[in-house]
Protein backbone atom coordinates (compact mmCIF):
# COMPACT_ATOMS: atom_id res chain seq x y z
CA UNK A 1 0.00 0.00 0.00
CA UNK A 2 1.22 3.49 -0.77
CA UNK A 3 -0.47 6.84 -0.32
CA UNK A 4 1.99 8.44 -2.73
CA UNK A 5 2.40 7.80 -6.44
CA UNK A 6 6.02 6.76 -5.92
CA UNK A 7 7.75 4.24 -3.67
CA UNK A 8 11.34 5.18 -4.44
CA UNK A 9 13.39 8.29 -5.11
CA UNK A 10 15.11 6.55 -8.04
CA UNK A 11 14.10 9.23 -10.49
CA UNK A 12 15.36 12.24 -12.38
CA UNK A 13 13.91 15.17 -10.43
CA UNK A 14 13.46 17.06 -13.69
CA UNK A 15 10.62 14.64 -14.41
CA UNK A 16 9.02 14.71 -10.94
CA UNK A 17 6.16 17.04 -10.01
CA UNK A 18 3.61 16.40 -7.28
CA UNK A 19 4.91 14.43 -4.29
CA UNK A 20 2.15 14.90 -1.68
CA UNK A 21 0.07 11.93 -0.54
CA UNK A 22 -3.38 11.25 -2.03
CA UNK A 23 -2.52 13.19 -5.20
CA UNK A 24 -5.57 13.23 -7.44
CA UNK A 25 -7.89 13.86 -4.47
CA UNK A 26 -7.38 17.62 -4.50
CA UNK A 27 -11.08 18.41 -4.94
CA UNK A 28 -12.03 16.18 -2.01
CA UNK A 29 -9.30 17.80 0.09
CA UNK A 30 -10.52 21.27 -0.81
CA UNK A 31 -14.11 20.31 0.14
CA UNK A 32 -12.89 18.94 3.48
CA UNK A 33 -10.78 22.04 4.03
CA UNK A 34 -13.60 24.44 3.23
CA UNK A 35 -16.01 22.54 5.51
CA UNK A 36 -13.40 22.73 8.27
CA UNK A 37 -12.87 26.47 7.77
CA UNK A 38 -16.59 27.35 7.61
CA UNK A 39 -17.40 25.16 10.61
CA UNK A 40 -14.67 26.81 12.63
CA UNK A 41 -15.73 30.30 11.63
CA UNK A 42 -19.44 29.65 12.36
CA UNK A 43 -18.61 28.15 15.75
CA UNK A 44 -16.34 31.10 16.57
CA UNK A 45 -19.16 33.44 15.70
CA UNK A 46 -21.62 31.56 17.92
CA UNK A 47 -19.11 31.53 20.72
CA UNK A 48 -18.77 35.30 20.58
CA UNK A 49 -22.57 35.73 20.63
CA UNK A 50 -22.80 33.58 23.75
CA UNK A 51 -19.96 35.46 25.41
CA UNK A 52 -21.51 38.86 24.68
CA UNK A 53 -24.88 37.66 25.95
CA UNK A 54 -23.27 36.55 29.20
CA UNK A 55 -21.36 39.85 29.50
CA UNK A 56 -24.59 41.75 28.89
CA UNK A 57 -26.37 39.85 31.66
CA UNK A 58 -23.49 40.41 34.05
CA UNK A 59 -23.32 44.14 33.35
CA UNK A 60 -24.48 46.54 36.07
CA UNK A 61 -23.78 50.21 36.67
CA UNK A 62 -21.51 49.48 39.64
CA UNK A 63 -19.42 46.82 37.86
CA UNK A 64 -19.20 49.00 34.75
CA UNK A 65 -17.99 51.89 36.89
CA UNK A 66 -15.25 49.83 38.47
CA UNK A 67 -14.19 48.57 35.04
CA UNK A 68 -13.92 52.16 33.81
CA UNK A 69 -11.72 52.88 36.83
CA UNK A 70 -9.49 49.92 35.90
CA UNK A 71 -9.04 51.48 32.45
Amino acid at each position, binding site marked *: *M*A*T*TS*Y*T*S*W*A*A*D*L*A*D*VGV*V*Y*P*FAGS*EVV*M*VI*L*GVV*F*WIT*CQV*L*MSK*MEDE*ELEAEEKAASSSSSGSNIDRY
Partner: protein
Amino acid sequence: MGSNIDALTTVFTEFYYWVTVVFMFLIHVGFCVYEVGVARRRNHMHTLMKNTMLIPVVTVTFFFFGWWIYWAFPNFPMAIDFAAGAPYTPWAENMGTNLGDRITGVFWAAFLLFSWTAASIVSGACIERIKTKAFLIHAVLIGSVFWIIDASWGWHWGGWMVKYLGYHDAYASGVIHAIAGGYALGILMVLGPRLGKFAKDGTPRDIPPHNPWLVTIGFFLIYTGFWGFYAACNVPIISPEVIDGQLTGVTWTATNIYLAPTTLGAITMNFLMSLSGGLMVAYLVSKGDAFWTYSGGLAGIITASAGNDLYHPIQAMLIGGFGAYAAFKLHNYVEKRFKIDDAVGAVAVHGYAGFIGVVICGFMLWGAPSSPYEGYAAISPWGQLIGAIIMFGLLGFLPGYLVSKLMQAKGMLRIPASVEIRGLDAMTNEAYESAVADIQAAEKRRLNEQSK
Protein backbone atom coordinates in the same frame (compact mmCIF):
# COMPACT_ATOMS: atom_id res chain seq x y z
CA MET B 1 36.19 23.81 -3.04
CA GLY B 2 37.18 22.73 -6.54
CA SER B 3 35.36 25.26 -8.73
CA ASN B 4 33.59 28.56 -8.35
CA ILE B 5 30.19 26.84 -8.50
CA ASP B 6 31.32 24.57 -5.65
CA ALA B 7 32.53 27.62 -3.75
CA LEU B 8 29.25 29.43 -4.33
CA THR B 9 27.24 26.43 -3.18
CA THR B 10 29.35 26.00 -0.07
CA VAL B 11 29.23 29.66 0.91
CA PHE B 12 25.49 29.78 0.20
CA THR B 13 24.96 26.74 2.41
CA GLU B 14 27.16 28.24 5.12
CA PHE B 15 25.22 31.50 5.03
CA TYR B 16 21.85 29.67 4.91
CA TYR B 17 22.54 27.77 8.15
CA TRP B 18 23.98 30.87 9.78
CA VAL B 19 20.69 32.71 9.13
CA THR B 20 18.66 29.82 10.56
CA VAL B 21 20.74 29.91 13.73
CA VAL B 22 20.04 33.60 14.24
CA PHE B 23 16.32 33.01 13.67
CA MET B 24 16.29 30.08 16.06
CA PHE B 25 17.74 32.26 18.80
CA LEU B 26 14.27 33.78 18.90
CA ILE B 27 12.86 30.45 20.08
CA HIS B 28 14.90 30.77 23.23
CA VAL B 29 14.01 34.42 23.69
CA GLY B 30 10.37 33.39 23.29
CA PHE B 31 10.63 30.58 25.82
CA CYS B 32 12.25 32.91 28.37
CA VAL B 33 9.62 35.63 27.87
CA TYR B 34 6.83 33.10 27.99
CA GLU B 35 8.07 31.35 31.13
CA VAL B 36 8.52 34.62 32.97
CA GLY B 37 5.02 35.63 31.88
CA VAL B 38 3.58 32.42 33.30
CA ALA B 39 5.59 32.51 36.56
CA ARG B 40 4.31 34.45 39.55
CA ARG B 41 6.04 37.73 40.37
CA ARG B 42 7.91 36.29 43.33
CA ASN B 43 9.70 33.77 41.05
CA HIS B 44 10.61 35.88 38.01
CA MET B 45 14.36 36.14 38.22
CA HIS B 46 14.96 32.52 39.11
CA THR B 47 12.65 31.40 36.32
CA LEU B 48 14.53 33.55 33.85
CA MET B 49 17.98 32.55 35.04
CA LYS B 50 17.15 28.85 35.06
CA ASN B 51 16.25 28.96 31.39
CA THR B 52 19.09 31.34 30.51
CA MET B 53 21.80 29.23 32.10
CA LEU B 54 20.89 26.19 30.04
CA ILE B 55 22.44 28.11 27.12
CA PRO B 56 26.04 27.85 28.34
CA VAL B 57 25.85 24.38 29.86
CA VAL B 58 24.20 22.83 26.82
CA THR B 59 26.48 24.72 24.44
CA VAL B 60 29.74 23.60 25.98
CA THR B 61 28.62 20.00 26.49
CA PHE B 62 27.29 19.88 22.95
CA PHE B 63 30.72 21.02 21.79
CA PHE B 64 32.54 18.48 23.97
CA PHE B 65 30.45 15.37 23.21
CA GLY B 66 26.92 16.04 21.89
CA TRP B 67 27.94 16.68 18.32
CA TRP B 68 30.21 13.63 18.30
CA ILE B 69 27.29 11.47 19.48
CA TYR B 70 25.23 12.50 16.46
CA TRP B 71 27.83 11.27 14.00
CA ALA B 72 29.07 8.23 15.90
CA PHE B 73 25.76 6.77 17.15
CA PRO B 74 23.56 6.09 14.06
CA ASN B 75 23.84 2.36 14.77
CA PHE B 76 24.22 2.52 18.55
CA PRO B 77 23.96 0.28 20.59
CA MET B 78 24.84 -2.26 17.88
CA ALA B 79 27.98 -0.29 16.96
CA ILE B 80 29.73 3.04 17.51
CA ASP B 81 31.17 4.53 14.35
CA PHE B 82 34.39 6.09 15.63
CA ALA B 83 35.58 6.91 12.11
CA ALA B 84 32.44 8.92 11.28
CA GLY B 85 32.61 10.66 14.64
CA ALA B 86 36.31 11.50 14.47
CA PRO B 87 35.97 14.86 12.64
CA TYR B 88 33.48 16.00 15.30
CA THR B 89 35.47 15.31 18.44
CA PRO B 90 36.32 18.54 20.27
CA TRP B 91 40.00 18.10 19.42
CA ALA B 92 39.39 17.59 15.68
CA GLU B 93 40.61 20.21 13.19
CA ASN B 94 37.09 20.49 11.73
CA MET B 95 35.88 21.88 15.06
CA GLY B 96 38.08 24.96 14.83
CA THR B 97 38.56 27.80 12.40
CA ASN B 98 39.33 25.92 9.21
CA LEU B 99 39.15 27.29 5.67
CA GLY B 100 38.83 23.74 4.38
CA ASP B 101 35.54 23.15 6.24
CA ARG B 102 33.03 25.99 6.22
CA ILE B 103 29.98 23.89 7.02
CA THR B 104 30.71 22.02 10.26
CA GLY B 105 30.52 25.16 12.41
CA VAL B 106 27.14 26.35 11.19
CA PHE B 107 25.69 22.83 11.08
CA TRP B 108 26.90 22.27 14.65
CA ALA B 109 25.27 25.53 15.69
CA ALA B 110 21.97 24.64 14.03
CA PHE B 111 21.85 21.36 15.94
CA LEU B 112 22.91 23.15 19.11
CA LEU B 113 19.92 25.46 18.84
CA PHE B 114 17.70 22.36 18.56
CA SER B 115 19.37 21.19 21.77
CA TRP B 116 18.50 24.42 23.56
CA THR B 117 14.92 24.04 22.41
CA ALA B 118 14.69 20.49 23.77
CA ALA B 119 16.00 21.62 27.15
CA SER B 120 13.87 24.76 27.17
CA ILE B 121 10.68 22.76 26.58
CA VAL B 122 11.49 20.82 29.75
CA SER B 123 12.30 24.02 31.64
CA GLY B 124 8.81 25.50 31.37
CA ALA B 125 7.03 22.44 32.73
CA CYS B 126 8.79 22.46 36.08
CA ILE B 127 8.98 26.16 36.94
CA GLU B 128 8.59 27.56 40.45
CA ARG B 129 9.72 24.44 42.34
CA ILE B 130 12.68 22.67 40.72
CA LYS B 131 16.19 23.49 41.91
CA THR B 132 18.22 25.18 39.19
CA LYS B 133 21.15 22.83 39.76
CA ALA B 134 18.87 19.84 39.18
CA PHE B 135 17.39 21.39 36.08
CA LEU B 136 20.78 22.18 34.61
CA ILE B 137 21.81 18.52 34.92
CA HIS B 138 18.57 17.58 33.17
CA ALA B 139 19.33 20.22 30.53
CA VAL B 140 22.69 18.63 29.75
CA LEU B 141 21.11 15.17 29.60
CA ILE B 142 18.21 16.08 27.33
CA GLY B 143 20.16 18.69 25.32
CA SER B 144 23.50 16.98 24.79
CA VAL B 145 22.78 13.29 25.31
CA PHE B 146 19.28 11.89 24.86
CA TRP B 147 17.87 14.08 22.12
CA ILE B 148 21.04 13.81 20.08
CA ILE B 149 20.99 10.01 20.43
CA ASP B 150 17.45 10.02 19.03
CA ALA B 151 18.58 12.37 16.26
CA SER B 152 21.39 9.99 15.42
CA TRP B 153 18.95 7.07 15.27
CA GLY B 154 15.99 8.72 13.56
CA TRP B 155 17.16 12.04 12.14
CA HIS B 156 20.34 11.07 10.32
CA TRP B 157 20.46 9.73 6.77
CA GLY B 158 22.16 6.57 8.06
CA GLY B 159 20.27 6.14 11.36
CA TRP B 160 19.06 2.62 12.15
CA MET B 161 15.50 3.78 12.77
CA VAL B 162 15.39 5.23 9.27
CA LYS B 163 16.94 2.13 7.71
CA TYR B 164 14.93 -0.54 9.47
CA LEU B 165 11.73 1.19 10.61
CA GLY B 166 11.38 3.66 7.75
CA TYR B 167 11.13 6.34 10.45
CA HIS B 168 10.19 9.73 9.00
CA ASP B 169 10.14 12.88 11.08
CA ALA B 170 11.19 15.73 8.81
CA TYR B 171 10.64 18.66 11.19
CA ALA B 172 11.06 16.85 14.48
CA SER B 173 7.60 16.04 15.86
CA GLY B 174 9.27 13.16 17.63
CA VAL B 175 12.98 13.83 17.71
CA ILE B 176 12.63 17.18 19.49
CA HIS B 177 9.08 17.57 20.73
CA ALA B 178 7.96 14.08 21.77
CA ILE B 179 11.24 13.34 23.53
CA ALA B 180 11.28 16.67 25.37
CA GLY B 181 7.61 16.29 26.36
CA GLY B 182 8.21 12.73 27.55
CA TYR B 183 11.30 13.81 29.48
CA ALA B 184 9.32 16.63 31.12
CA LEU B 185 6.57 14.19 32.13
CA GLY B 186 9.18 11.92 33.73
CA ILE B 187 10.47 14.83 35.83
CA LEU B 188 6.99 16.05 36.75
CA MET B 189 5.91 12.65 38.05
CA VAL B 190 8.73 12.74 40.58
CA LEU B 191 8.85 16.50 41.20
CA GLY B 192 5.17 16.82 42.09
CA PRO B 193 2.81 19.77 41.68
CA ARG B 194 3.32 23.33 42.87
CA LEU B 195 1.99 23.86 46.40
CA GLY B 196 -1.72 24.61 46.26
CA LYS B 197 -2.17 23.42 42.70
CA PHE B 198 -4.65 20.75 43.74
CA ALA B 199 -7.46 21.09 46.28
CA LYS B 200 -7.85 18.44 48.97
CA ASP B 201 -10.36 16.57 46.84
CA GLY B 202 -7.87 16.53 43.97
CA THR B 203 -9.53 19.23 41.89
CA PRO B 204 -6.88 21.22 40.00
CA ARG B 205 -6.70 24.95 40.68
CA ASP B 206 -5.86 27.37 37.92
CA ILE B 207 -2.62 29.27 38.58
CA PRO B 208 -3.01 32.07 36.02
CA PRO B 209 -0.02 33.62 34.26
CA HIS B 210 1.01 36.83 36.03
CA ASN B 211 1.23 38.57 32.65
CA PRO B 212 -0.80 37.06 29.77
CA TRP B 213 0.52 39.70 27.34
CA LEU B 214 4.11 38.68 27.95
CA VAL B 215 3.09 35.08 27.38
CA THR B 216 1.58 35.86 23.99
CA ILE B 217 4.65 37.84 22.92
CA GLY B 218 6.72 34.86 23.94
CA PHE B 219 4.60 32.62 21.76
CA PHE B 220 4.96 34.96 18.77
CA LEU B 221 8.72 34.88 19.20
CA ILE B 222 8.64 31.08 19.36
CA TYR B 223 6.56 30.97 16.17
CA THR B 224 9.08 33.24 14.46
CA GLY B 225 12.03 31.18 15.58
CA PHE B 226 10.20 28.08 14.40
CA TRP B 227 10.61 29.37 10.81
CA GLY B 228 14.33 29.20 11.28
CA PHE B 229 13.99 25.79 12.82
CA TYR B 230 12.12 24.51 9.76
CA ALA B 231 14.70 25.93 7.38
CA ALA B 232 17.53 24.51 9.46
CA CYS B 233 16.06 21.02 9.13
CA ASN B 234 16.64 21.18 5.36
CA VAL B 235 19.73 20.89 3.23
CA PRO B 236 19.28 23.98 1.06
CA ILE B 237 20.93 22.78 -2.15
CA ILE B 238 22.52 19.50 -3.12
CA SER B 239 23.31 17.62 -6.32
CA PRO B 240 22.25 14.01 -6.96
CA GLU B 241 25.86 12.77 -7.08
CA VAL B 242 26.55 14.15 -3.59
CA ILE B 243 23.62 12.13 -2.23
CA ASP B 244 25.10 9.07 -4.00
CA GLY B 245 21.80 7.32 -3.66
CA GLN B 246 19.22 6.50 -6.24
CA LEU B 247 18.42 9.98 -7.49
CA THR B 248 19.26 10.17 -11.16
CA GLY B 249 19.72 13.09 -13.53
CA VAL B 250 21.50 16.35 -12.80
CA THR B 251 18.77 18.42 -11.14
CA TRP B 252 19.87 19.97 -7.87
CA THR B 253 17.35 20.17 -5.06
CA ALA B 254 16.69 21.08 -1.46
CA THR B 255 16.23 18.05 0.76
CA ASN B 256 15.04 17.15 4.21
CA ILE B 257 17.47 15.84 6.84
CA TYR B 258 17.29 12.36 5.23
CA LEU B 259 18.52 13.86 1.92
CA ALA B 260 15.11 13.18 0.30
CA PRO B 261 13.79 15.98 -1.92
CA THR B 262 11.45 18.71 -0.71
CA THR B 263 11.03 22.44 -1.29
CA LEU B 264 11.15 25.52 0.93
CA GLY B 265 7.84 26.51 -0.71
CA ALA B 266 6.16 23.34 0.52
CA ILE B 267 7.32 23.66 4.08
CA THR B 268 6.42 27.34 4.20
CA MET B 269 2.83 26.66 3.14
CA ASN B 270 2.52 23.67 5.45
CA PHE B 271 3.95 25.58 8.40
CA LEU B 272 1.35 28.33 8.00
CA MET B 273 -1.56 26.00 7.32
CA SER B 274 -0.82 23.73 10.29
CA LEU B 275 -0.42 26.82 12.50
CA SER B 276 -3.82 28.05 11.28
CA GLY B 277 -5.55 24.72 11.82
CA GLY B 278 -4.14 24.56 15.32
CA LEU B 279 -5.10 28.14 16.18
CA MET B 280 -8.71 27.78 15.00
CA VAL B 281 -9.39 24.52 16.79
CA ALA B 282 -7.62 25.58 19.98
CA TYR B 283 -9.56 28.86 20.05
CA LEU B 284 -12.79 26.90 19.88
CA VAL B 285 -11.96 24.09 22.22
CA SER B 286 -10.51 26.42 24.87
CA LYS B 287 -13.40 28.89 24.45
CA GLY B 288 -11.13 31.70 23.36
CA ASP B 289 -8.51 31.27 26.08
CA ALA B 290 -5.40 33.12 24.86
CA PHE B 291 -2.87 30.82 26.50
CA TRP B 292 -4.37 27.68 24.97
CA THR B 293 -5.12 29.28 21.62
CA TYR B 294 -1.45 30.16 21.18
CA SER B 295 -0.40 26.78 22.57
CA GLY B 296 -2.76 25.14 20.09
CA GLY B 297 -1.12 26.98 17.20
CA LEU B 298 2.21 25.54 18.30
CA ALA B 299 0.69 22.08 18.81
CA GLY B 300 -0.75 22.30 15.30
CA ILE B 301 2.67 22.89 13.75
CA ILE B 302 4.27 20.22 15.92
CA THR B 303 1.66 17.59 15.00
CA ALA B 304 2.09 18.17 11.26
CA SER B 305 5.87 18.58 11.42
CA ALA B 306 6.78 14.92 10.93
CA GLY B 307 5.40 14.96 7.38
CA ASN B 308 5.36 18.65 6.53
CA ASP B 309 8.04 18.09 3.88
CA LEU B 310 5.52 16.14 1.80
CA TYR B 311 1.99 16.93 3.01
CA HIS B 312 -0.48 18.96 0.99
CA PRO B 313 -1.28 22.23 2.84
CA ILE B 314 -4.90 21.19 3.48
CA GLN B 315 -3.66 17.96 5.02
CA ALA B 316 -1.28 19.98 7.20
CA MET B 317 -4.17 22.23 8.32
CA LEU B 318 -6.45 19.33 9.27
CA ILE B 319 -3.66 17.47 11.06
CA GLY B 320 -2.73 20.67 12.89
CA GLY B 321 -6.33 21.12 14.00
CA PHE B 322 -6.53 17.58 15.31
CA GLY B 323 -3.22 17.97 17.15
CA ALA B 324 -4.40 21.10 18.94
CA TYR B 325 -7.64 19.38 20.00
CA ALA B 326 -5.78 16.32 21.26
CA ALA B 327 -3.18 18.36 23.16
CA PHE B 328 -5.83 20.43 24.96
CA LYS B 329 -7.98 17.44 25.91
CA LEU B 330 -5.08 15.26 26.97
CA HIS B 331 -3.54 18.03 29.09
CA ASN B 332 -6.74 18.45 31.08
CA TYR B 333 -7.38 14.72 31.35
CA VAL B 334 -3.86 13.93 32.60
CA GLU B 335 -3.91 16.89 35.00
CA LYS B 336 -7.16 15.74 36.62
CA ARG B 337 -6.58 11.99 36.48
CA PHE B 338 -2.90 11.80 37.45
CA LYS B 339 -2.44 15.13 39.30
CA ILE B 340 0.37 16.23 37.01
CA ASP B 341 1.12 19.95 37.28
CA ASP B 342 2.57 20.97 33.93
CA ALA B 343 2.79 24.74 34.40
CA VAL B 344 2.97 25.59 30.70
CA GLY B 345 1.29 22.61 29.06
CA ALA B 346 4.65 21.52 27.60
CA VAL B 347 3.99 17.80 27.92
CA ALA B 348 0.77 18.15 25.95
CA VAL B 349 1.87 20.69 23.33
CA HIS B 350 5.22 19.06 22.65
CA GLY B 351 4.97 15.52 23.98
CA TYR B 352 1.47 14.33 23.10
CA ALA B 353 1.16 16.40 19.94
CA GLY B 354 4.62 15.26 18.81
CA PHE B 355 3.81 11.61 19.50
CA ILE B 356 0.50 11.83 17.68
CA GLY B 357 2.13 13.66 14.77
CA VAL B 358 4.70 10.91 14.27
CA VAL B 359 1.97 8.25 14.23
CA ILE B 360 -0.32 10.20 11.87
CA CYS B 361 2.62 10.60 9.49
CA GLY B 362 2.84 6.80 9.29
CA PHE B 363 -0.69 6.63 7.92
CA MET B 364 -0.47 9.70 5.70
CA LEU B 365 2.83 8.73 4.05
CA TRP B 366 2.32 4.98 4.17
CA GLY B 367 4.55 3.35 1.55
CA ALA B 368 6.51 6.48 0.65
CA PRO B 369 10.30 6.11 0.67
CA SER B 370 11.94 7.16 3.92
CA SER B 371 15.25 7.77 2.19
CA PRO B 372 16.78 8.11 -1.28
CA TYR B 373 19.14 5.25 -0.37
CA GLU B 374 18.44 1.77 -1.64
CA GLY B 375 17.22 -0.92 0.75
CA TYR B 376 15.72 1.37 3.40
CA ALA B 377 12.31 0.47 4.87
CA ALA B 378 9.36 2.47 3.57
CA ILE B 379 7.34 4.74 5.86
CA SER B 380 4.64 2.77 7.71
CA PRO B 381 2.25 3.20 10.66
CA TRP B 382 3.99 0.52 12.73
CA GLY B 383 7.47 1.94 12.06
CA GLN B 384 6.23 5.36 13.12
CA LEU B 385 4.45 3.99 16.22
CA ILE B 386 7.59 2.18 17.37
CA GLY B 387 9.54 5.36 16.63
CA ALA B 388 7.15 7.50 18.66
CA ILE B 389 7.41 5.12 21.62
CA ILE B 390 11.21 5.24 21.42
CA MET B 391 11.19 9.05 21.31
CA PHE B 392 8.58 9.76 23.98
CA GLY B 393 9.07 6.73 26.21
CA LEU B 394 12.51 5.18 25.91
CA LEU B 395 14.66 8.28 25.37
CA GLY B 396 12.30 10.84 26.92
CA PHE B 397 10.15 9.69 29.81
CA LEU B 398 12.38 6.91 31.16
CA PRO B 399 15.61 8.87 31.68
CA GLY B 400 13.69 11.92 32.94
CA TYR B 401 11.94 9.78 35.53
CA LEU B 402 14.95 7.73 36.64
CA VAL B 403 17.35 10.65 36.94
CA SER B 404 14.73 12.63 38.88
CA LYS B 405 14.24 9.69 41.25
CA LEU B 406 17.97 9.67 41.88
CA MET B 407 17.99 13.42 42.45
CA GLN B 408 15.02 13.14 44.79
CA ALA B 409 16.82 10.48 46.83
CA LYS B 410 19.79 12.83 47.17
CA GLY B 411 17.54 15.77 48.10
CA MET B 412 18.62 17.86 45.16
CA LEU B 413 15.47 17.98 43.05
CA ARG B 414 12.95 20.28 44.72
CA ILE B 415 13.27 23.55 46.61
CA PRO B 416 12.15 23.64 50.28
CA ALA B 417 8.42 24.26 50.83
CA SER B 418 9.06 27.42 52.87
CA VAL B 419 11.07 28.90 49.98
CA GLU B 420 8.40 27.90 47.49
CA ILE B 421 5.72 29.72 49.49
CA ARG B 422 7.87 32.78 50.09
CA GLY B 423 9.04 32.86 46.50
CA LEU B 424 12.42 32.09 44.99
CA ASP B 425 13.17 35.78 44.50
CA ALA B 426 12.33 36.89 48.05
CA MET B 427 15.87 37.73 49.11
CA THR B 428 16.71 39.21 45.71
CA ASN B 429 13.61 41.39 45.90
CA GLU B 430 14.44 42.50 49.47
CA ALA B 431 17.98 43.35 48.43
CA TYR B 432 16.59 45.28 45.46
CA GLU B 433 14.14 47.25 47.63
CA SER B 434 16.84 47.93 50.19
CA ALA B 435 19.21 49.18 47.48
CA VAL B 436 16.49 51.40 46.02
CA ALA B 437 15.68 52.84 49.47
CA ASP B 438 19.37 53.41 50.17
CA ILE B 439 20.12 55.25 46.93
CA GLN B 440 16.92 57.30 47.19
CA ALA B 441 17.82 58.38 50.72
CA ALA B 442 21.36 59.29 49.61
CA GLU B 443 20.08 61.35 46.69
CA LYS B 444 17.57 63.18 48.90
CA ARG B 445 20.30 63.98 51.45
CA ARG B 446 22.45 65.40 48.67
CA LEU B 447 19.51 67.43 47.35
CA ASN B 448 18.88 68.87 50.83
CA GLU B 449 22.55 69.78 51.22
CA GLN B 450 22.58 71.54 47.84
CA SER B 451 19.48 73.55 48.70
CA LYS B 452 21.01 74.87 51.96
